[in-house]
């Protein structure tokens, strides 16, 4: 993976390589170099399979991390390209022409994280949620508990226990 990183670094301004396993590494790419890097990896380096495309909300840094995980079957290795984009007005270039399946991932990210991918097919169509008007629900600032309490009512006669206390008693009786 280090050799691959060295080769890529001559072409694109990459961040440091994080080697998670001998066959899995992550590297940060500036947003404007993502498309050429993906095309290079797909056409020259044999990373032909887009495993997944997803986002991580680093709300404290005001950034979304987009992870494009690519797999090379013949070499049995994977590389994850991380792209950091600002949370405010989050927009990213669409890669549906590179991998047609990316359109589905981008549609989900649009709905769940509010990240726009202009030009991606049916990106504004509802994917899972119907008529959602709240904060995109997979963002960290969306509070599931508060949403549930405001929108749903508890069935009467239902007993609930605090999970932390309950588990503590079950797992470590006597406070061991």
């Amino acid at each position, binding site marked *: 993976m280090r050799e691959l990183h060295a080769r890529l670094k001559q072409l694109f301004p990459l961040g440091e390589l*994080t080697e*998670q*396993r001998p*066959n*899995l590494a*992550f590297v940060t790419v500036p947003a404007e170099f993502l498309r050429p890097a993906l095309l290079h990896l797909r056409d020259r380096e044999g990373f*032909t*399979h*887009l*495993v*997944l495309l*997803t*986002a*991580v*909300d680093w709300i404290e840094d005001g950034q979304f991390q987009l*992870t494009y*995980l690519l797999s090379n*079957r013949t070499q*049995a290795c*994977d590389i*994850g390209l991380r792209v950091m984009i600002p949370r405010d007005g989050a927009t990213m270039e669409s890669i549906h022409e590179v*991998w*047609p*399946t990316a*359109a*589905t991932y981008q549609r989900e990210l649009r709905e769940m994280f509010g990240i726009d991918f202009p030009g991606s097919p049916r990106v504004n169509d*509802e*994917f*899972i*949620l*119907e008529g959602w008007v709240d904060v995109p*629900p*997979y963002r*960290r600032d*969306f509070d*599931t*508990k508060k949403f549930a309490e405001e929108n749903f009512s508890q069935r009467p006669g239902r007993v609930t226990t605090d*999970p*932390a206390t309950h*588990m*503590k008693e079950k*797992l*470590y009786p006597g406070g061991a």
Partner: protein
Amino acid sequence: MTYVPDRSQYPAKKADGTLDIDLASGKYLKLWQGPQHPGITGNMSVELTVCGDEVVEGKTHVGYLHRGFEKLMERRTFIQCFPIVCRVCVPEPDFNEYCFAAAVEELAGIEAPERANWIRTLILEMGRINSYMMYLGGQAGAFGLGVIGQWTTYVRDLMLDRFEELTGARIYHMFILPGGVRDVLPDGFDQRMEETLREIERTMQDVHDVMFCNAVFKKRAVGQGYIDPALVDSYGVTGPNARAAGIAKDVRKNQPYLVYPQLDFEPVIGKDSDIYTRADVRRRDLLMSVDLIRQLLAKMPRTGPVMAKLPNVLHWKIPRGETYIRGECSRGEYGYYLVTDGSGYPRRVNVRGPSYTHAMALLERLIVNINISDVAGLMVSLHTYPPEIER
């Protein structure tokens, strides 16, 4: 006489590539297959636009089973996530448990004991057989062979008995937890498993004779639903769907995990990439799983721990990191992408279910120009489970 389709009735394409469908013209009809329909796999629906009895456009709609697992897990400690993950995929839940457990172990620096890895592999292969049994019944049913589903459900039930005695549960086993597995094999398990495997082999012989040699099934499945091998990588096709197209994509062989390097097997490959070949690849893969279970039981160590020592799970913090763990489930590549931030809760969990690509982009492409009556057969042949699309 060769059949030449009449394309004069077909919709023209607009400048942006979408079809110019004028519903008011009376040429086209919107037809919803699902979410409540015998010819649909699970709770999803396909919005078909048909011209006569031929499909001109299909759009997959999901969301009927969305429970927001990925978000739920962000509010739970790592050990609290463990009983949730199996709910992501109902018919084959063990892959969720394995991938989540392996991801947590990798980021926390825990190594599961050797014996636990053997038991984990056994569980995964047992789950694979169950999942294929459901598939075979569904595939035959979609083409009108109702009895196959009754036979496969019967042997699946025998396998559920084995699951019950091993894990205490039939569907959601919650057996593979971070650090190892919950228990060892019960006494006499090998003997009863061997009886079950023999019953499975007998049933599979019947299924082969009645389903795969059946003229009606062949007539409807051969040559139908062709996946071009060139689409395999661009559409993220994995598992039996890719192997039926002649591409040996099998995570068990390509990137071996657990104890697969110590087992003797070769990925099952097909050639013709149609519905029939995909069904046949799965049938042979099922028989391979039977063989793998025999190998596992013969080679498995019978002594040693099955659980590594975990820290106090109520205050378990995992250092910042990210990883991706994959396994070969019955539908293809199943994976968990886990991001941790040093706190006691996962920062992000993303489930990569193989149906995500198969049931959306691939199905929408394959469904064009097929007959309405073949839609169910095509959909089942991709072996999709909607819950792993929407999580």
